[in-house]
C-alpha cells in the first residue's frame, strides 16, 4: 500500500497485467513515443505520460506506437483481440471517436452476438474525457453515454486512483470489449493504492457515503465533487448516500433502485451533456422501478446542451459544480409532494 496518483495507478495496472499475461499488449499514438525519431526511445508514454516506462520493460513488440489512423489501429486492436491477444489501445481523447467508431460499435461490440456467441473480443480502449483543461469543444467532451447506449460494450468510469487500478485490471482480464474512461483532471489525484494487483468488479456500484435523506447517483470525476457536497451537507443535518456507478455498462440497477427506495429522494450528477445521458438513464430506471418510494422529483445536474466552451470563465460554469449539486440536493429535500394517489 502506498500513495499513488491516478496516472501511476493506471500505469501500474498495465505493467502488472503485462507481467502476468504475455498476450497483453498496448498501442496508441505516441504511447511509447519518439518512434523513428532521433531522441529518446521512451520519451512520452502517451501525451500525458500515462504509459511512460513500460517500453523498456516489455519492448517494442508489446508496446506499439501507431500512425494517426484511429480506424486502422483501434480496428487492429479489435482484430487482434479476436485472434488471441489482449490489446489495450489508447484513443488519446474520446473526442476522436468519430474517426473510428465503426470498429468499436459495429465490429467489437457486435461480434459475439452476430457470430452466435462464438467470438471473444477482449480489447480494452483507454481514453481521456472531461472538461476542465481549457481544451475547448473538441478535447473536453464526455461522450460515455454514446458508448453506454451500444449493447456489447462495457463502459468503465474510474473515479479515483484506487478505483482506476482495480477497474483497469478487471478490464484487461475481462473477455468483453471495454471502454475505459480516464478523466484528464484526475491524473494527479493521489490516494492509498495497494501495490499488489487486485480487481474491482463490473456492475457493482460503490457507496462512497451512506445516508438517509438523499441518494446522489454519480460517476467518474463527479464522485469527488459529490462526496464534497455530502460532507458539507452532513454538517447541516442532510445525510446523503453517494453512489459511484463505477461502470455504466453493466449498470448496477439493484443498488441504484435500493438507494432510491431507502431515501425516496434522488439527485443524479453527470458531467456529460444532458440529452439521452446517464442522468436520464438513472432517472428513468428509478421512475420505472421505484416509483412508489419516491418522495420528490429526481433532479439531474449535468452540463448544459452546448459544446464545451474555451474561455475559462465559461468552462467553469459549464461543468457541474459543488454549488449546483448542493442546490439540487436541497431542492429535493425541501420538496413536499401533494398527494394524488
Amino acid at each position: 500500500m502506498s500513495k499513488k496518483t491516478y496516472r501511476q495507478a493506471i500505469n501500474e495496472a498495465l505493467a502488472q497485467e503485462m507481467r502476468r499475461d504475455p498476450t497483453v499488449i498496448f498501442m496508441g499514438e505516441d504511447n511509447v513515443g519518439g518512434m523513428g525519431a532521433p531522441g529518446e526511445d521512451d520519451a512520452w508514454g502517451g501525451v500525458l505520460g500515462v504509459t511512460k516506462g513500460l517500453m523498456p520493460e516489455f519492448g517494442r513488440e508489446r508496446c506499439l506506437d501507431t500512425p494517426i489512423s484511429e480506424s486502422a489501429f483501434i480496428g487492429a486492436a479489435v482484430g487482434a483481440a479476436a485472434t488471441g491477444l489482449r490489446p489495450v489501445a489508447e484513443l488519446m481523447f474520446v473526442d476522436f471517436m468519430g474517426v473510428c467508431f465503426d470498429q468499436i460499435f459495429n465490429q467489437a461490440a457486435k461480434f459475439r452476438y452476430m457470430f452466435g456467441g462464438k467470438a471473444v473480443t477482449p480489447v480494452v480502449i483507454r481514453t481521456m474525457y472531461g472538461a476542465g483543461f481549457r481544451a475547448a469543444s473538441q478535447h473536453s467532451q464526455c461522450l460515455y453515454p454514446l458508448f453506454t447506449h451500444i449493447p456489447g460494450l462495457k463502459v468503465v468510469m474510474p473515479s479515483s486512483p484506487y478505483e482506476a487500478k482495480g477497474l483497469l485490471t478487471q478490464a484487461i482480464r475481462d473477455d468483453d470489449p471495454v471502454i475505459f474512461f480516464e478523466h484528464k483532471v484526475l491524473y494527479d489525484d493521489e490516494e492509498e493504492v495497494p501495490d499488489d494487483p487486485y480487481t474491482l468488479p463490473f456492475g457493482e456500484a460503490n457507496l462512497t457515503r451512506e445516508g438517509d435523506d438523499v441518494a446522489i447517483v454519480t460517476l467518474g470525476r463527479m464522485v469527488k465533487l459529490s462526496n464534497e457536497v455530502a460532507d458539507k451537507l452532513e454538517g447541516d443535518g442532510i445525510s446523503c448516500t453517494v453512489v459511484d456507478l463505477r461502470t455504466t455498462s453493466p449498470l448496477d440497477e439493484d443498488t441504484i433502485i435500493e438507494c432510491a427506495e431507502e431515501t425516496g429522494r434522488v439527485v443524479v450528477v453527470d458531467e456529460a451533456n444532458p440529452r439521452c445521458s446517464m442522468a436520464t438513464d438513472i432517472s428513468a430506471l428509478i421512475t420505472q422501478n421505484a416509483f412508489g418510494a419516491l418522495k420528490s422529483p429526481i433532479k439531474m445536474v449535468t452540463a448544459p446542451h452546448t459544446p464545451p466552451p474555451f474561455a475559462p470563465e465559461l468552462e467553469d460554469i459549464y461543468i457541474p459544480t459543488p454549488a449546483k449539486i448542493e442546490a439540487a440536493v436541497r431542492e429535493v429535500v425541501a420538496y413536499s409532494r401533494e398527494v394524488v394517489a
Partner: protein
Amino acid sequence: MMSPSGMQLPREELVRAYRMMCDIRHFEDSVHDEFAAGSIPGFVHLYAGEEASAVGFMMHLNDADRIASTHRGHGHCIAKGCDVKAMMKEIYGRADGLCGGKGGSMHIADLTKGMMGANGIVGGGPPLICGAALSAKTLKTGGVAVAFVGDGGSNQGTTLESYNLAKVWNLPAIFVVEDNRYAESTASAWSVGGSQLKRAEGFGMPGRKVDGHDFFDVYDAAAEAIGRARNGEGPSLVHVETYRYYGHFEGDAITYRTPEEEEQMKTQKDCLKIFSQRVTETGLLDASALEEVEAESRSLIEQAVAEAKAAPAPGPDKLLTDVYVSY
C-alpha cells in the same frame, strides 16, 4: 524466391480447387433461386462469377491464417473451409446455422476456421486484418492475414489507413481488391481515382494485378504475396479483375450494366470454364473427373438447402443471449 505455379499443383489439389469453386457456384445459384422464391430473408449479396479469386487465395491458407471478408462473403467462407450446410442454415436464419441464425448472410463467420466474418460495413475488414496479422506476428504463429475488399471498398478511409498501418508495422497482411467493376450501381472506372497498383506503391507496398477469371493467375499472385508475408517481408496488394453474375444484392434490377456485357463475361470469362479448359487441355485432369466433382458438389448443395429448409428457427430465449461473455 519463385513460388511454384498453380499449373504444377498435384491432381488432388486441382480437384480440391475445382470442388471449392463448384461449391461456391452452386451455393450461390441455389441461394439466388431460393431468394427469388421468397424463402430467404434479408440482404443477400452473391459471389457467383468471382470464385477463382477466393479459391486462388485460400488454396494457400490454413486454419491458422485469417481472412476478413465483405458483405459478399459466401465465397470466401466456403473457400476458407466453413461448413457449407451450417452456412446455408445461417442464411435461412436457423438455430444451428453457423452463427445460430443471429448473423445471416452479411455476418457469416467461423473464427475456428480463421474466417473473421463477412461484414456489413464496406471497409470494415482491413483494420481487423491488421489486427489478425499483428496477432500472428506477435504470437509468432507463422500465419498471415488476408483482407478482401471490393473496388468500392478500396475508396474507404479505413482501407487506406490499413495499407499504411500494415506497411509501417511490417505486418504479414495481404489486401485483395476484388474489382468486379461496380460498387452497387457505380462503376469503379469512375470511383477509383488513380489506380489500385499506384496506390499500393503510394503506401510502399508491392502490388500486382491479375485476371480474376483465371484461377491460375490468381493462385500465382497469391503465392507471391502470401509468401512475402510469411517471410516477414510485409504487406502486399493484389488487384483482382473480376465480375459478379447477379445483381448487387438479390432483388437488384441491374439497370446500370448492359445485358451484352453480362453475356460476354459469362460466356467468355467464366472462371469455371476457363479452369476446365486449362486443366483438360494440358491433361492435368480429365473431363470425367471434373464432372464427378460437379455432381458431388451439386448434391451437397441440394442437401444443404433441403436441410436448411427443414431446420428449426432459434427459440425466443436466444434473443437476449450472446451479447457479453460475462454479464
